């Protein structure tokens, strides 16, 4: 299946935006400017974008604690995100959620989640709503390899199958659940588990945008056609630690350097589209510059913005009380 030039440009732009964003947040965190915890998505861009490129505003996604990439891929406002991560007024969640709960329901982004395995049941619900209301939408749960072992995730597979929901479970296996290897922690196989619940499952190389995009297309089309849920096991690795500040001593010393040199998804994408003569290097360089500038502006604004007022403490606890 071919992507159009517009789609290719769109894909690259989203991935580059994520990369710039995460690298910037990494630097800012190191400089001591960001409160709380952040969990960065650099290296994993192909997955979020490979799936979200197929989606529109009626579709919903739920993410993990590592949610910036999904947020950007789903079209959330980058400046709003930066403000939110800095905890400033005007953030995507008014400064009330921060990195771990970053969300925009208007864009169908049901939030990063501070609870491992929190997403899949929510996605079953969103899929149920789409099915009941006849919107034609699908719902995607991005789950980590760690989250794949939570009871909530497995129960959600079962529920999605027996209720025949338009849901997709994407296991983002980046090799480690915190410091623990996914190979050790996950019994059996992700695809085998899906099949155990009567769902189709495939495994893809998460560094390869096109492989992800293709697997995503099939799963999403299946869901939209009313043929129920599926699972996609995406294998890749994260560049940064589980959280910012993680010494990552559990990794091989040159692991990340090798990944960046050999498996970087943006590099592989560029190589592929250039070789196929689909896009010019200069176009891609331009996008690089645009994204860099956008993120820089967002950062500037976030640093300058005020804190939320103290009266915000007790707003939006309820719709009415």
């Amino acid at each position, binding site marked *: 299946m071919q992507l159009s030039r517009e789609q290719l440009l769109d894909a690259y732009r989203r991935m580059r935006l994520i990369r710039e964003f995460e690298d910037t947040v990494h630097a800012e965190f190191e400089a001591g400017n960001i409160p709380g915890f952040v969990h960065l998505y650099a290296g994993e861009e192909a997955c979020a974008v490979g799936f979200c490129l197929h989606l529109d505003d009626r579709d919903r996604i739920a993410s993990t604690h590592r949610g910036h990439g999904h947020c950007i891929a789903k079209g959330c406002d980058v400046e709003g995100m930066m403000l939110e991560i800095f905890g400033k007024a005007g953030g995507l969640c008014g400064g009330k959620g921060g990195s771990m709960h970053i969300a925009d329901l208007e864009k169908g982004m049901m*939030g990063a989640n501070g*609870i491992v395995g929190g997403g899949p049941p929510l996605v079953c619900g*969103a899929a149920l709503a789409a099915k009941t209301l006849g919107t034609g939408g699908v719902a995607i749960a991005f789950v980590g390899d760690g989250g794949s072992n939570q009871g909530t995730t497995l129960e959600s597979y079962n*529920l999605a199958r027996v209720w025949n929901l338009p849901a997709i479970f994407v296991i983002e296996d980046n090799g480690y659940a915190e410091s623990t290897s996914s190979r050790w922690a996950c019994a059996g196989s992700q695809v085998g588990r899906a099949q155990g619940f009567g769902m189709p499952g495939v495994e893809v190389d998460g560094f390869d945008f096109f492989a992800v995009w293709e697997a995503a297309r099939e799963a999403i089309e299946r869901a939209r056609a009313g043929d129920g849920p599926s699972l996609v096991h995406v294998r890749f690795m994260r560049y940064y630690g589980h959280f910012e500040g993680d010494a990552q001593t559990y990794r091989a010393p040159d692991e990340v350097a090798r990944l960046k040199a050999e498996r970087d998804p943006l590099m592989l994408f560029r190589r592929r589209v250039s070789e196929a003569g689909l896009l010019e290097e200069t176009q891609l360089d331009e996008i690089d510059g645009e994204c860099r500038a956008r993120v820089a502006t967002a950062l500037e604004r976030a640093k300058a913005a005020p804190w939320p007022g103290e009266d915000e403490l007790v707003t939006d606890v309820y719709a009415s009380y």
Partner: protein
Amino acid sequence: MAKKTYRQAINEALRQEMERDPRVVLMGEDVAGGMGSPGEDDAWGGPLGVTKGLMPIFGRERVLDTPISESAFIGAAVGAAASGLRPVAELMFVDFMGVCFDQIFNQGAKLRYMFGGKAKVPMVIRTMYGAGFRAASQHSQCLYSLFTHIPGLKVALPSNAYEAKGLLIQAIRDDDPVIFFEHKAMYDDEAEVPDEPYAIPFGEANVAREGDDVAIIALGRMVNLALEAAGQLEGEGISCAVVDPRTTSPLDTETLLEVVEECGRVVIVDEAHPRCSMARDIAAVIAEEAFDALEAPVRTVTAPHAPVPFSPALEDAYIPSTEKIAAAVRAVAGHPGG
């Protein structure tokens, strides 16, 4: 006006709201029953028949049986509520909250706040509570204080059939997550219940009986025991007001304090365990805000700090009784004035 049971009143509330709003859906274990089984469809209508008759009317698209997967389907109720449906999920026994509490207190309760007001979770979780069925420790608890503790949740405790229909209709129409507590021993209790739909606002306590010597604040089923005790005490010359908060979150402290200030003496009746209970919560509010009006210490009548026992003799001793309530009132009434 027709007399209906607590069970009928709840069923009617669900049916009328489902008729009015196609976004209202029910989900839970055996809420219809018989799913995939060879025998009768709608075999159960819930473990105590509360939702019977709804699936034949609304179909399995709107009355969804679930596998035994609370964390999945309670979480799905949250996600569905945030995505345009108005689900009424059933947590069969509140004692089961352990397997899905994250979905309730970390997801459902907090989405609106964490997302800066951009999410809405108009979900109701109906759940059974209370002792008296000899169902023992894991099927008899009154855990409403745990939910009341969580900002973002609302908690309703209807004390009779009239209250049940009105509070459930309000819960379904409310845009916040509501935990709706049904006392399992009350399902056959009758009251006059209008045929038409009506909503009782949250955060408005009901002064079920007027009196000026001692205020009895009671929760859920205990309201009825308090009324019985008050009738008895009237004959002894002690005039009791009985107040039913109706909802513990929001809590109508204004009315509670008003009645306490008029009486100067108060007894709080709560079937739950005493530590970190609603009884202690309300007592603290009174101590902090009505201290000068008090003529006696605040008394609470609760279960003991123990799991619910199985043996009928033990369970009967466990639950607050009319006699215990009356004794507490006499003690408080007899306390020398402050």
